[in-house]
Protein backbone atom coordinates (compact mmCIF):
# COMPACT_ATOMS: atom_id res chain seq x y z
CA UNK A 1 0.00 0.00 0.00
CA UNK A 2 1.27 3.54 0.41
CA UNK A 3 4.46 4.08 2.34
CA UNK A 4 4.33 4.71 6.08
CA UNK A 5 5.69 8.18 5.49
CA UNK A 6 2.42 9.02 3.82
CA UNK A 7 0.31 7.88 6.71
CA UNK A 8 -0.24 11.32 8.15
CA UNK A 9 -3.56 13.09 8.02
CA UNK A 10 -5.08 12.40 4.64
CA UNK A 11 -8.07 14.68 4.82
CA UNK A 12 -8.07 17.18 2.04
CA UNK A 13 -10.36 20.07 1.55
CA UNK A 14 -13.87 18.84 0.95
CA UNK A 15 -15.03 19.18 -2.63
CA UNK A 16 -17.40 21.98 -3.44
CA UNK A 17 -20.80 20.68 -2.64
CA UNK A 18 -24.15 22.35 -2.48
CA UNK A 19 -26.62 20.17 -0.61
CA UNK A 20 -29.77 19.91 -2.59
CA UNK A 21 -27.89 20.82 -5.77
CA UNK A 22 -28.40 19.26 -9.15
CA UNK A 23 -29.27 15.61 -8.99
CA UNK A 24 -27.93 15.30 -12.52
CA UNK A 25 -24.42 16.19 -11.40
CA UNK A 26 -24.33 14.18 -8.20
CA UNK A 27 -22.44 10.89 -8.32
CA UNK A 28 -24.93 9.13 -6.04
CA UNK A 29 -28.54 10.16 -5.64
CA UNK A 30 -30.82 8.26 -3.29
CA UNK A 31 -34.38 9.49 -3.21
CA UNK A 32 -36.84 8.32 -0.59
CA UNK A 33 -35.56 4.75 -0.78
CA UNK A 34 -37.24 2.11 1.29
CA UNK A 35 -36.59 -1.59 1.53
CA UNK A 36 -38.80 -4.12 3.21
CA UNK A 37 -37.79 -7.76 3.57
CA UNK A 38 -40.21 -10.57 4.09
CA UNK A 39 -38.93 -12.86 6.82
CA UNK A 40 -40.23 -16.21 5.62
CA UNK A 41 -38.59 -18.12 8.45
CA UNK A 42 -40.85 -16.59 11.06
CA UNK A 43 -44.35 -17.97 11.57
CA UNK A 44 -46.44 -16.17 10.57
CA UNK A 45 -44.19 -14.47 8.03
CA UNK A 46 -43.45 -10.89 8.92
CA UNK A 47 -42.11 -7.85 7.16
CA UNK A 48 -38.85 -6.27 8.30
CA UNK A 49 -38.12 -2.69 7.31
CA UNK A 50 -34.44 -2.36 6.55
CA UNK A 51 -34.61 1.13 5.03
CA UNK A 52 -37.32 3.73 5.23
CA UNK A 53 -37.47 6.99 3.27
CA UNK A 54 -33.71 7.39 2.92
CA UNK A 55 -32.57 10.31 0.76
CA UNK A 56 -28.92 11.06 0.20
CA UNK A 57 -26.72 12.80 -2.33
CA UNK A 58 -23.02 12.34 -2.77
CA UNK A 59 -21.09 14.79 -4.94
CA UNK A 60 -18.50 13.63 -7.47
CA UNK A 61 -15.12 13.25 -5.80
CA UNK A 62 -16.63 13.24 -2.33
CA UNK A 63 -15.73 10.69 0.34
CA UNK A 64 -18.95 10.11 2.19
CA UNK A 65 -19.19 8.15 5.40
CA UNK A 66 -22.27 6.15 6.25
CA UNK A 67 -22.27 5.45 9.95
CA UNK A 68 -24.57 3.20 11.87
CA UNK A 69 -24.76 0.24 14.20
CA UNK A 70 -25.29 -3.33 13.07
CA UNK A 71 -28.67 -3.69 11.41
CA UNK A 72 -28.98 0.05 10.77
CA UNK A 73 -29.41 -0.45 7.02
CA UNK A 74 -25.93 0.46 5.78
CA UNK A 75 -25.34 -2.78 3.90
CA UNK A 76 -28.87 -2.72 2.51
CA UNK A 77 -28.15 0.69 0.99
CA UNK A 78 -24.84 -0.61 -0.40
CA UNK A 79 -26.66 -3.57 -1.96
CA UNK A 80 -29.14 -1.25 -3.62
CA UNK A 81 -26.40 1.00 -4.99
CA UNK A 82 -24.47 -2.00 -6.30
CA UNK A 83 -27.60 -3.39 -8.01
CA UNK A 84 -27.67 -6.61 -6.00
CA UNK A 85 -30.92 -5.56 -4.31
CA UNK A 86 -33.91 -3.65 -5.62
CA UNK A 87 -35.48 -0.98 -3.46
CA UNK A 88 -39.08 -1.54 -2.44
CA UNK A 89 -39.84 2.15 -2.79
CA UNK A 90 -38.01 5.21 -4.08
CA UNK A 91 -35.15 5.32 -6.54
CA UNK A 92 -31.39 5.50 -6.60
CA UNK A 93 -29.02 6.64 -9.31
CA UNK A 94 -25.29 6.27 -9.70
CA UNK A 95 -23.68 8.72 -12.12
CA UNK A 96 -27.15 9.54 -13.39
CA UNK A 97 -28.12 5.92 -14.09
CA UNK A 98 -30.96 4.22 -12.32
CA UNK A 99 -29.81 1.22 -10.32
CA UNK A 100 -32.92 -0.76 -11.25
CA UNK A 101 -33.59 0.20 -14.85
CA UNK A 102 -29.97 0.69 -15.99
CA UNK A 103 -28.29 -1.76 -13.68
CA UNK A 104 -25.72 -3.03 -16.17
CA UNK A 105 -24.44 0.47 -16.89
CA UNK A 106 -24.29 1.14 -13.15
CA UNK A 107 -22.25 -2.02 -12.61
CA UNK A 108 -19.72 -0.87 -15.18
CA UNK A 109 -18.99 2.30 -13.25
CA UNK A 110 -18.85 1.04 -9.66
CA UNK A 111 -16.43 -0.93 -7.57
CA UNK A 112 -17.57 -2.84 -4.52
CA UNK A 113 -15.37 -3.78 -1.60
CA UNK A 114 -16.57 -5.43 1.56
CA UNK A 115 -14.67 -6.46 4.63
CA UNK A 116 -13.74 -9.90 5.86
CA UNK A 117 -12.11 -12.98 4.42
CA UNK A 118 -14.55 -13.91 1.68
CA UNK A 119 -15.11 -12.67 -1.84
CA UNK A 120 -11.80 -13.86 -3.27
CA UNK A 121 -10.79 -17.08 -5.00
CA UNK A 122 -8.50 -18.69 -2.47
CA UNK A 123 -7.01 -21.19 -4.90
CA UNK A 124 -5.92 -18.49 -7.31
CA UNK A 125 -2.91 -16.30 -6.72
CA UNK A 126 -3.34 -12.60 -6.01
CA UNK A 127 -2.36 -11.81 -9.59
CA UNK A 128 -4.80 -14.37 -11.02
CA UNK A 129 -7.58 -12.97 -8.85
CA UNK A 130 -6.98 -9.54 -10.34
CA UNK A 131 -6.83 -11.00 -13.86
CA UNK A 132 -10.12 -12.76 -13.21
CA UNK A 133 -11.92 -9.74 -11.81
CA UNK A 134 -10.40 -7.45 -14.43
CA UNK A 135 -11.78 -9.77 -17.08
CA UNK A 136 -15.21 -9.41 -15.47
CA UNK A 137 -14.93 -5.69 -16.24
CA UNK A 138 -13.99 -6.32 -19.86
CA UNK A 139 -10.24 -5.74 -19.55
CA UNK A 140 -8.16 -7.74 -21.97
CA UNK A 141 -4.63 -8.98 -22.44
CA UNK A 142 -1.92 -6.34 -21.98
CA UNK A 143 -4.25 -3.78 -20.40
CA UNK A 144 -5.52 -6.37 -17.95
CA UNK A 145 -2.06 -7.50 -17.01
CA UNK A 146 -0.73 -3.96 -16.66
CA UNK A 147 -3.67 -2.97 -14.48
CA UNK A 148 -3.10 -5.97 -12.21
CA UNK A 149 0.60 -5.11 -11.79
CA UNK A 150 -0.16 -1.48 -10.94
CA UNK A 151 -2.73 -2.45 -8.35
CA UNK A 152 -0.56 -5.16 -6.78
CA UNK A 153 2.17 -2.58 -6.38
CA UNK A 154 -0.26 -0.02 -5.04
CA UNK A 155 -1.62 -2.26 -2.28
CA UNK A 156 1.79 -3.66 -1.40
CA UNK A 157 1.24 -7.20 -2.61
CA UNK A 158 3.67 -7.24 -5.54
CA UNK A 159 6.04 -9.53 -3.63
CA UNK A 160 3.24 -12.05 -2.97
CA UNK A 161 1.56 -11.72 -6.35
CA UNK A 162 2.02 -15.40 -7.21
CA UNK A 163 1.06 -16.82 -3.81
CA UNK A 164 -2.26 -18.53 -3.37
CA UNK A 165 -4.73 -16.23 -1.66
CA UNK A 166 -5.76 -18.85 0.89
CA UNK A 167 -2.26 -18.53 2.36
CA UNK A 168 -2.78 -14.79 2.97
CA UNK A 169 -3.44 -13.13 6.31
CA UNK A 170 -6.73 -11.33 6.73
CA UNK A 171 -5.09 -7.95 6.27
CA UNK A 172 -3.48 -9.07 3.01
CA UNK A 173 -6.81 -10.38 1.76
CA UNK A 174 -8.37 -7.06 2.59
CA UNK A 175 -5.73 -5.23 0.59
CA UNK A 176 -6.38 -7.55 -2.30
CA UNK A 177 -10.08 -6.80 -1.92
CA UNK A 178 -9.31 -3.13 -2.37
CA UNK A 179 -7.26 -3.86 -5.46
CA UNK A 180 -10.10 -6.01 -6.79
CA UNK A 181 -12.55 -3.17 -6.22
CA UNK A 182 -10.31 -0.84 -8.22
CA UNK A 183 -9.49 -3.20 -11.07
CA UNK A 184 -12.34 -1.94 -13.27
CA UNK A 185 -11.15 1.65 -12.74
CA UNK A 186 -14.53 2.62 -11.22
CA UNK A 187 -15.57 6.25 -10.79
CA UNK A 188 -17.65 5.32 -7.76
CA UNK A 189 -16.44 3.02 -5.01
CA UNK A 190 -18.75 1.44 -2.46
CA UNK A 191 -16.73 0.33 0.54
CA UNK A 192 -18.85 -1.66 2.98
CA UNK A 193 -16.95 -1.94 6.25
CA UNK A 194 -13.67 -2.45 4.40
CA UNK A 195 -11.45 -2.34 7.47
CA UNK A 196 -13.17 -5.17 9.33
CA UNK A 197 -10.41 -7.40 10.62
CA UNK A 198 -7.57 -5.09 9.60
CA UNK A 199 -4.77 -4.47 12.07
CA UNK A 200 -4.22 -0.82 13.05
CA UNK A 201 -1.27 -0.32 10.69
CA UNK A 202 -3.21 -1.72 7.75
CA UNK A 203 -6.18 0.47 8.69
CA UNK A 204 -3.91 3.53 8.58
CA UNK A 205 -2.64 2.45 5.18
CA UNK A 206 -6.22 2.09 4.10
CA UNK A 207 -6.98 5.66 5.15
CA UNK A 208 -4.06 6.87 3.11
CA UNK A 209 -5.37 4.95 0.14
CA UNK A 210 -8.76 6.62 0.50
CA UNK A 211 -6.94 9.96 0.36
CA UNK A 212 -5.31 8.88 -2.90
CA UNK A 213 -8.68 7.88 -4.32
CA UNK A 214 -10.09 11.28 -3.49
CA UNK A 215 -7.15 13.00 -5.19
CA UNK A 216 -7.92 10.90 -8.26
CA UNK A 217 -11.45 12.33 -8.24
CA UNK A 218 -13.22 9.10 -7.38
CA UNK A 219 -16.40 9.17 -5.36
CA UNK A 220 -16.35 6.94 -2.30
CA UNK A 221 -19.23 5.80 -0.12
CA UNK A 222 -17.74 4.27 2.99
CA UNK A 223 -19.79 2.45 5.59
CA UNK A 224 -18.14 1.97 8.93
CA UNK A 225 -18.61 1.60 12.65
CA UNK A 226 -15.34 3.34 13.23
CA UNK A 227 -15.90 6.99 14.02
CA UNK A 228 -12.20 7.80 13.99
CA UNK A 229 -11.98 6.37 10.50
CA UNK A 230 -14.95 8.43 9.35
CA UNK A 231 -13.52 11.59 10.87
CA UNK A 232 -10.14 10.94 9.28
CA UNK A 233 -11.20 10.30 5.71
CA UNK A 234 -14.73 11.57 5.07
CA UNK A 235 -15.81 14.93 3.70
CA UNK A 236 -19.34 14.38 4.97
CA UNK A 237 -20.99 11.76 7.10
CA UNK A 238 -24.52 10.45 7.32
CA UNK A 239 -25.78 8.79 10.45
CA UNK A 240 -28.25 6.00 9.90
CA UNK A 241 -30.18 4.03 12.46
CA UNK A 242 -33.02 1.53 12.20
CA UNK A 243 -33.29 2.16 8.50
CA UNK A 244 -33.68 5.92 8.78
CA UNK A 245 -31.19 8.63 7.96
CA UNK A 246 -30.74 10.72 11.09
CA UNK A 247 -28.50 13.41 9.68
CA UNK A 248 -26.06 14.22 6.92
CA UNK A 249 -23.42 16.81 7.67
CA UNK A 250 -19.92 17.77 6.71
CA UNK A 251 -17.39 16.51 9.20
CA UNK A 252 -16.75 20.19 10.06
CA UNK A 253 -20.42 20.66 10.90
CA UNK A 254 -20.31 17.54 12.98
CA UNK A 255 -17.35 19.12 14.76
CA UNK A 256 -19.54 22.10 15.59
CA UNK A 257 -22.22 19.73 16.81
CA UNK A 258 -19.62 18.15 19.04
CA UNK A 259 -18.83 21.51 20.60
CA UNK A 260 -22.30 21.54 22.13
CA UNK A 261 -21.41 18.55 24.22
CA UNK A 262 -18.81 18.23 26.92
CA UNK A 263 -17.72 15.53 29.27
CA UNK A 264 -16.48 15.87 32.84
CA UNK A 265 -14.57 13.02 34.44
CA UNK A 266 -13.77 12.99 38.16
CA UNK A 267 -12.37 10.46 40.62
CA UNK A 268 -13.12 9.85 44.31
CA UNK A 269 -16.72 10.97 43.93
CA UNK A 270 -19.20 9.54 46.46
CA UNK A 271 -22.55 8.24 45.21
CA UNK A 272 -24.53 10.99 46.91
CA UNK A 273 -22.47 13.67 45.13
CA UNK A 274 -22.97 11.89 41.81
CA UNK A 275 -26.74 12.04 42.36
CA UNK A 276 -26.49 15.81 43.04
CA UNK A 277 -24.57 16.30 39.80
CA UNK A 278 -27.10 14.26 37.88
CA UNK A 279 -29.88 16.59 39.05
CA UNK A 280 -28.23 19.68 37.53
CA UNK A 281 -29.77 21.32 34.46
CA UNK A 282 -28.01 20.49 31.21
CA UNK A 283 -26.59 17.19 32.47
CA UNK A 284 -27.66 14.47 30.06
CA UNK A 285 -25.93 11.42 31.46
CA UNK A 286 -23.96 10.36 34.51
CA UNK A 287 -22.06 7.12 34.88
CA UNK A 288 -20.73 6.33 38.32
CA UNK A 289 -18.56 3.34 39.02
CA UNK A 290 -16.02 2.62 41.75
CA UNK A 291 -15.81 6.27 42.73
CA UNK A 292 -15.23 7.46 39.17
CA UNK A 293 -17.92 9.60 37.61
CA UNK A 294 -18.37 10.53 33.96
CA UNK A 295 -20.78 13.37 33.36
CA UNK A 296 -22.02 14.35 29.93
CA UNK A 297 -23.41 17.83 29.46
CA UNK A 298 -25.12 19.41 26.50
CA UNK A 299 -24.19 23.06 27.17
CA UNK A 300 -21.11 24.87 28.51
CA UNK A 301 -23.02 26.44 31.40
CA UNK A 302 -23.90 22.97 32.66
CA UNK A 303 -20.23 22.04 32.58
CA UNK A 304 -19.43 25.05 34.75
CA UNK A 305 -22.15 24.08 37.21
CA UNK A 306 -20.86 20.52 37.42
CA UNK A 307 -17.29 21.74 38.03
CA UNK A 308 -18.51 24.10 40.74
CA UNK A 309 -20.41 21.37 42.55
CA UNK A 310 -17.46 18.98 42.35
CA UNK A 311 -14.94 21.61 43.49
CA UNK A 312 -17.28 22.67 46.32
CA UNK A 313 -17.36 19.07 47.54
CA UNK A 314 -13.59 18.91 47.59
CA UNK A 315 -13.13 16.79 44.49
CA UNK A 316 -9.88 17.85 42.82
CA UNK A 317 -9.10 15.07 40.35
CA UNK A 318 -11.28 16.47 37.56
CA UNK A 319 -10.85 16.72 33.78
CA UNK A 320 -13.04 17.92 30.94
CA UNK A 321 -13.05 16.88 27.30
CA UNK A 322 -15.07 17.19 24.15
CA UNK A 323 -16.72 13.94 23.20
CA UNK A 324 -15.72 12.42 19.91
CA UNK A 325 -18.04 11.74 17.00
CA UNK A 326 -18.80 8.33 18.41
CA UNK A 327 -20.23 9.74 21.61
CA UNK A 328 -22.36 12.27 19.74
CA UNK A 329 -23.50 9.44 17.57
CA UNK A 330 -24.55 7.55 20.67
CA UNK A 331 -26.47 10.59 21.86
CA UNK A 332 -28.32 10.66 18.59
CA UNK A 333 -29.14 7.00 18.17
CA UNK A 334 -29.34 6.07 21.81
CA UNK A 335 -27.35 3.56 23.79
CA UNK A 336 -28.42 0.17 22.58
CA UNK A 337 -25.31 -1.84 23.23
CA UNK A 338 -23.88 -0.98 19.82
CA UNK A 339 -20.37 -1.79 18.83
CA UNK A 340 -19.04 1.70 18.35
CA UNK A 341 -15.31 2.17 18.61
Amino acid at each position, binding site marked *: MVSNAEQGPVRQEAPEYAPGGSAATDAIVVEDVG*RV*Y*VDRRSRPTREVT*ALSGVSLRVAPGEVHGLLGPNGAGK*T*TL*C*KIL*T*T*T*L*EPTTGSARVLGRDVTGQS*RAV*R*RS*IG*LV*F*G*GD*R*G*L*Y*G*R*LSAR*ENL*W*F*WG*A*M*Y*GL*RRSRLRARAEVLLERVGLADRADSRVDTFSRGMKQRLHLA*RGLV*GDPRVLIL*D*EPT*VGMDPVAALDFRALIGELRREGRTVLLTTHDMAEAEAVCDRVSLIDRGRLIMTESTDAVGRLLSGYERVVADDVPAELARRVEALDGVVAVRHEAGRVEVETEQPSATSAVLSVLAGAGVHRVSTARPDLGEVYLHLVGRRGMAVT
Partner: protein
Amino acid sequence: MYPSALHLVRYGFLNAVADFKATYTWRSWLFGWLGRMFAQVLFFTGLGRVLDQPGAVRYLALGNALMTCVVDTMAVVATTSGERRAGTLSLLVASPADPVWVFVGRSLHWPISGVATASAALFGLGPIFGITWSASQVPLVVLLTALTALGTYCVGLFLAVVVVNVPRLRNVVSNCAYLAMMAFCGVQVPVGFWPRGIQAVVQAVPLTHTLRALRAVSDNRPAADVFGPVVPALLTAGLWLIAAVVTFRWLVAVPARRAGTLDLSY
Protein backbone atom coordinates in the same frame (compact mmCIF):
# COMPACT_ATOMS: atom_id res chain seq x y z
CA MET B 1 -16.69 -2.33 -22.86
CA TYR B 2 -18.63 -5.33 -21.60
CA PRO B 3 -16.92 -8.72 -21.46
CA SER B 4 -17.90 -11.29 -24.08
CA ALA B 5 -19.21 -14.73 -23.15
CA LEU B 6 -16.05 -16.40 -24.50
CA HIS B 7 -13.85 -14.05 -22.48
CA LEU B 8 -15.78 -14.93 -19.33
CA VAL B 9 -15.62 -18.67 -20.03
CA ARG B 10 -11.88 -18.38 -20.54
CA TYR B 11 -11.27 -16.60 -17.24
CA GLY B 12 -13.75 -18.88 -15.49
CA PHE B 13 -11.55 -21.74 -16.69
CA LEU B 14 -8.63 -20.11 -14.86
CA ASN B 15 -10.51 -21.02 -11.69
CA ALA B 16 -11.24 -24.50 -12.97
CA VAL B 17 -7.55 -25.23 -13.44
CA ALA B 18 -6.71 -23.86 -9.99
CA ASP B 19 -9.50 -25.92 -8.42
CA PHE B 20 -8.36 -29.09 -10.12
CA LYS B 21 -4.75 -28.55 -9.06
CA ALA B 22 -5.89 -27.96 -5.49
CA THR B 23 -8.17 -31.01 -5.49
CA TYR B 24 -5.89 -33.62 -7.06
CA THR B 25 -2.32 -34.56 -7.61
CA TRP B 26 -1.77 -37.03 -10.43
CA ARG B 27 -1.37 -39.74 -7.78
CA SER B 28 -4.60 -38.91 -5.94
CA TRP B 29 -6.49 -38.71 -9.23
CA LEU B 30 -5.06 -41.99 -10.48
CA PHE B 31 -5.21 -44.04 -7.31
CA GLY B 32 -7.99 -42.22 -5.50
CA TRP B 33 -10.55 -40.98 -7.96
CA LEU B 34 -9.92 -43.40 -10.82
CA GLY B 35 -9.65 -46.31 -8.38
CA ARG B 36 -13.00 -45.40 -6.85
CA MET B 37 -14.65 -45.19 -10.26
CA PHE B 38 -13.09 -48.47 -11.40
CA ALA B 39 -14.47 -50.10 -8.24
CA GLN B 40 -17.95 -48.84 -9.11
CA VAL B 41 -17.72 -50.21 -12.66
CA LEU B 42 -16.40 -53.54 -11.42
CA PHE B 43 -19.14 -53.80 -8.77
CA PHE B 44 -22.06 -53.24 -11.13
CA THR B 45 -20.54 -55.28 -13.92
CA GLY B 46 -19.87 -58.05 -11.40
CA LEU B 47 -23.60 -58.13 -10.71
CA GLY B 48 -24.03 -58.94 -14.40
CA ARG B 49 -21.98 -62.10 -13.94
CA VAL B 50 -24.28 -63.11 -11.07
CA LEU B 51 -27.32 -62.62 -13.32
CA ASP B 52 -25.92 -65.18 -15.72
CA GLN B 53 -27.71 -63.64 -18.68
CA PRO B 54 -26.03 -63.43 -22.07
CA GLY B 55 -24.98 -59.89 -22.82
CA ALA B 56 -25.64 -58.59 -19.31
CA VAL B 57 -21.96 -58.21 -18.47
CA ARG B 58 -21.22 -56.35 -21.69
CA TYR B 59 -24.32 -54.15 -21.20
CA LEU B 60 -23.40 -53.22 -17.63
CA ALA B 61 -19.71 -52.71 -18.37
CA LEU B 62 -20.42 -50.23 -21.17
CA GLY B 63 -23.11 -48.38 -19.24
CA ASN B 64 -21.19 -48.09 -16.01
CA ALA B 65 -17.92 -47.18 -17.69
CA LEU B 66 -19.58 -44.28 -19.49
CA MET B 67 -21.46 -43.40 -16.30
CA THR B 68 -18.16 -42.53 -14.59
CA CYS B 69 -17.89 -39.40 -16.69
CA VAL B 70 -21.41 -38.42 -15.60
CA VAL B 71 -20.51 -38.81 -11.93
CA ASP B 72 -17.38 -36.71 -12.40
CA THR B 73 -19.11 -34.03 -14.43
CA MET B 74 -22.03 -33.58 -12.04
CA ALA B 75 -19.57 -32.04 -9.58
CA VAL B 76 -20.35 -28.84 -11.49
CA VAL B 77 -23.32 -28.40 -9.14
CA ALA B 78 -21.17 -28.30 -6.01
CA THR B 79 -18.48 -26.17 -7.61
CA THR B 80 -20.95 -23.58 -8.87
CA SER B 81 -22.70 -23.31 -5.53
CA GLY B 82 -19.25 -22.75 -4.05
CA GLU B 83 -19.46 -19.24 -5.49
CA ARG B 84 -21.95 -18.33 -2.82
CA ARG B 85 -19.96 -19.97 -0.05
CA ALA B 86 -16.86 -18.12 -1.21
CA GLY B 87 -18.74 -14.83 -1.15
CA THR B 88 -18.01 -14.24 -4.83
CA LEU B 89 -21.55 -14.69 -6.13
CA SER B 90 -22.71 -11.23 -5.09
CA LEU B 91 -19.53 -9.70 -6.53
CA LEU B 92 -20.14 -11.47 -9.83
CA VAL B 93 -23.73 -10.23 -9.86
CA ALA B 94 -22.50 -6.71 -9.06
CA SER B 95 -20.01 -6.79 -11.95
CA PRO B 96 -20.81 -6.02 -15.60
CA ALA B 97 -20.26 -9.69 -16.45
CA ASP B 98 -23.01 -12.24 -16.95
CA PRO B 99 -22.16 -14.72 -14.17
CA VAL B 100 -23.63 -17.68 -15.99
CA TRP B 101 -20.76 -17.62 -18.52
CA VAL B 102 -18.32 -17.58 -15.64
CA PHE B 103 -20.09 -20.67 -14.31
CA VAL B 104 -19.68 -22.32 -17.71
CA GLY B 105 -15.90 -21.95 -17.57
CA ARG B 106 -15.63 -22.33 -13.81
CA SER B 107 -16.17 -26.11 -13.67
CA LEU B 108 -14.78 -27.26 -17.01
CA HIS B 109 -12.18 -29.35 -15.21
CA TRP B 110 -14.90 -31.84 -14.27
CA PRO B 111 -15.97 -32.89 -17.78
CA ILE B 112 -12.31 -33.01 -18.81
CA SER B 113 -11.57 -35.29 -15.88
CA GLY B 114 -14.76 -37.18 -16.71
CA VAL B 115 -13.62 -37.91 -20.27
CA ALA B 116 -10.30 -39.19 -18.95
CA THR B 117 -12.05 -41.33 -16.33
CA ALA B 118 -14.57 -42.88 -18.72
CA SER B 119 -11.96 -43.43 -21.41
CA ALA B 120 -9.74 -45.20 -18.89
CA ALA B 121 -12.69 -47.35 -17.80
CA LEU B 122 -13.78 -48.20 -21.36
CA PHE B 123 -10.31 -48.97 -22.67
CA GLY B 124 -8.79 -50.28 -19.42
CA LEU B 125 -11.60 -52.32 -17.92
CA GLY B 126 -13.52 -53.15 -21.11
CA PRO B 127 -11.18 -55.95 -22.25
CA ILE B 128 -11.63 -57.68 -18.88
CA PHE B 129 -15.30 -58.11 -19.79
CA GLY B 130 -14.73 -58.97 -23.41
CA ILE B 131 -15.16 -55.46 -24.81
CA THR B 132 -12.39 -54.68 -27.23
CA TRP B 133 -12.02 -51.73 -29.56
CA SER B 134 -10.47 -51.51 -32.97
CA ALA B 135 -8.19 -48.59 -33.80
CA SER B 136 -10.91 -47.03 -35.95
CA GLN B 137 -13.39 -47.21 -33.06
CA VAL B 138 -11.15 -45.47 -30.53
CA PRO B 139 -11.67 -41.88 -31.79
CA LEU B 140 -15.42 -42.47 -31.96
CA VAL B 141 -15.50 -43.79 -28.40
CA VAL B 142 -13.53 -40.78 -27.14
CA LEU B 143 -15.79 -38.38 -29.06
CA LEU B 144 -18.92 -39.99 -27.65
CA THR B 145 -17.44 -39.86 -24.17
CA ALA B 146 -16.68 -36.17 -24.68
CA LEU B 147 -20.20 -35.58 -25.93
CA THR B 148 -21.59 -37.34 -22.88
CA ALA B 149 -19.47 -35.16 -20.61
CA LEU B 150 -20.48 -32.02 -22.49
CA GLY B 151 -24.18 -32.88 -22.42
CA THR B 152 -24.07 -33.83 -18.77
CA TYR B 153 -22.20 -30.62 -18.05
CA CYS B 154 -25.07 -28.64 -19.54
CA VAL B 155 -27.60 -30.59 -17.44
CA GLY B 156 -25.40 -30.01 -14.39
CA LEU B 157 -25.11 -26.29 -15.13
CA PHE B 158 -28.87 -26.02 -15.24
CA LEU B 159 -29.20 -27.75 -11.88
CA ALA B 160 -26.31 -25.68 -10.52
CA VAL B 161 -27.91 -22.34 -11.32
CA VAL B 162 -31.19 -23.55 -9.84
CA VAL B 163 -29.49 -24.24 -6.49
CA VAL B 164 -26.72 -21.65 -6.64
CA ASN B 165 -28.53 -19.51 -4.10
CA VAL B 166 -29.50 -22.53 -1.97
CA PRO B 167 -26.10 -24.18 -1.48
CA ARG B 168 -27.28 -26.65 1.16
CA LEU B 169 -29.04 -28.54 -1.63
CA ARG B 170 -25.98 -28.88 -3.85
CA ASN B 171 -25.00 -32.45 -2.99
CA VAL B 172 -28.57 -33.68 -2.72
CA VAL B 173 -29.36 -32.37 -6.18
CA SER B 174 -26.22 -33.63 -7.90
CA ASN B 175 -26.42 -37.07 -6.28
CA CYS B 176 -30.13 -37.47 -7.02
CA ALA B 177 -29.55 -36.34 -10.60
CA TYR B 178 -26.82 -38.82 -11.41
CA LEU B 179 -28.53 -41.64 -9.57
CA ALA B 180 -31.66 -40.97 -11.62
CA MET B 181 -29.57 -40.99 -14.81
CA MET B 182 -27.93 -44.21 -13.69
CA ALA B 183 -31.30 -45.81 -13.13
CA PHE B 184 -33.39 -44.54 -16.04
CA CYS B 185 -31.08 -43.65 -18.96
CA GLY B 186 -30.06 -47.15 -19.98
CA VAL B 187 -26.99 -47.62 -17.80
CA GLN B 188 -28.14 -50.61 -15.73
CA VAL B 189 -31.30 -51.68 -17.55
CA PRO B 190 -32.65 -50.76 -21.00
CA VAL B 191 -34.77 -47.61 -21.15
CA GLY B 192 -37.63 -49.78 -22.42
CA PHE B 193 -37.78 -51.46 -19.01
CA TRP B 194 -39.37 -48.33 -17.51
CA PRO B 195 -42.92 -46.97 -17.92
CA ARG B 196 -43.56 -44.84 -20.98
CA GLY B 197 -43.59 -41.59 -19.02
CA ILE B 198 -40.05 -42.19 -17.80
CA GLN B 199 -38.96 -43.30 -21.27
CA ALA B 200 -40.21 -39.98 -22.60
CA VAL B 201 -38.52 -37.91 -19.90
CA VAL B 202 -35.10 -39.52 -20.36
CA GLN B 203 -35.10 -38.49 -24.01
CA ALA B 204 -34.25 -35.04 -22.63
CA VAL B 205 -31.03 -36.39 -21.11
CA PRO B 206 -27.98 -36.43 -23.42
CA LEU B 207 -26.61 -39.56 -21.72
CA THR B 208 -29.56 -41.60 -23.01
CA HIS B 209 -28.55 -40.86 -26.60
CA THR B 210 -24.78 -41.03 -26.27
CA LEU B 211 -25.03 -44.38 -24.50
CA ARG B 212 -27.17 -45.72 -27.33
CA ALA B 213 -24.52 -44.51 -29.79
CA LEU B 214 -21.71 -46.07 -27.76
CA ARG B 215 -23.47 -49.42 -27.71
CA ALA B 216 -23.89 -49.14 -31.48
CA VAL B 217 -20.14 -48.55 -31.89
CA SER B 218 -19.37 -51.48 -29.63
CA ASP B 219 -21.72 -53.73 -31.59
CA ASN B 220 -20.24 -52.60 -34.94
CA ARG B 221 -23.65 -51.44 -36.08
CA PRO B 222 -24.14 -49.18 -39.15
CA ALA B 223 -23.11 -45.54 -39.04
CA ALA B 224 -26.74 -44.40 -38.88
CA ASP B 225 -27.14 -46.21 -35.56
CA VAL B 226 -24.03 -44.48 -34.25
CA PHE B 227 -24.58 -40.96 -35.53
CA GLY B 228 -28.37 -40.95 -35.31
CA PRO B 229 -28.39 -40.53 -31.49
CA VAL B 230 -25.67 -37.85 -31.70
CA VAL B 231 -28.15 -35.31 -33.07
CA PRO B 232 -30.59 -35.47 -30.12
CA ALA B 233 -27.62 -35.59 -27.75
CA LEU B 234 -26.29 -32.31 -29.15
CA LEU B 235 -29.76 -30.81 -29.30
CA THR B 236 -30.64 -31.65 -25.71
CA ALA B 237 -27.23 -30.44 -24.52
CA GLY B 238 -27.85 -27.10 -26.22
CA LEU B 239 -31.32 -26.83 -24.75
CA TRP B 240 -30.02 -27.50 -21.24
CA LEU B 241 -27.38 -24.78 -21.71
CA ILE B 242 -30.01 -22.31 -22.88
CA ALA B 243 -32.20 -23.32 -19.95
CA ALA B 244 -29.28 -22.67 -17.59
CA VAL B 245 -28.64 -19.20 -19.02
CA VAL B 246 -32.31 -18.20 -19.03
CA THR B 247 -32.94 -19.66 -15.60
CA PHE B 248 -30.04 -17.82 -14.02
CA ARG B 249 -30.80 -14.50 -15.65
CA TRP B 250 -34.55 -14.44 -15.14
CA LEU B 251 -35.49 -17.01 -12.53
CA VAL B 252 -32.54 -16.74 -10.15
CA ALA B 253 -30.77 -13.35 -10.40
CA VAL B 254 -33.84 -11.18 -10.91
CA PRO B 255 -35.92 -12.74 -8.09
CA ALA B 256 -32.84 -12.77 -5.84
CA ARG B 257 -32.40 -9.03 -6.41
CA ARG B 258 -36.05 -8.50 -5.59
CA ALA B 259 -36.09 -10.77 -2.55
CA GLY B 260 -32.70 -9.67 -1.25
CA THR B 261 -31.21 -13.13 -1.07
CA LEU B 262 -27.81 -12.20 -2.51
CA ASP B 263 -25.54 -11.66 0.44
CA LEU B 264 -22.60 -9.37 0.59
CA SER B 265 -20.24 -11.51 2.57
CA TYR B 266 -18.14 -10.85 5.62
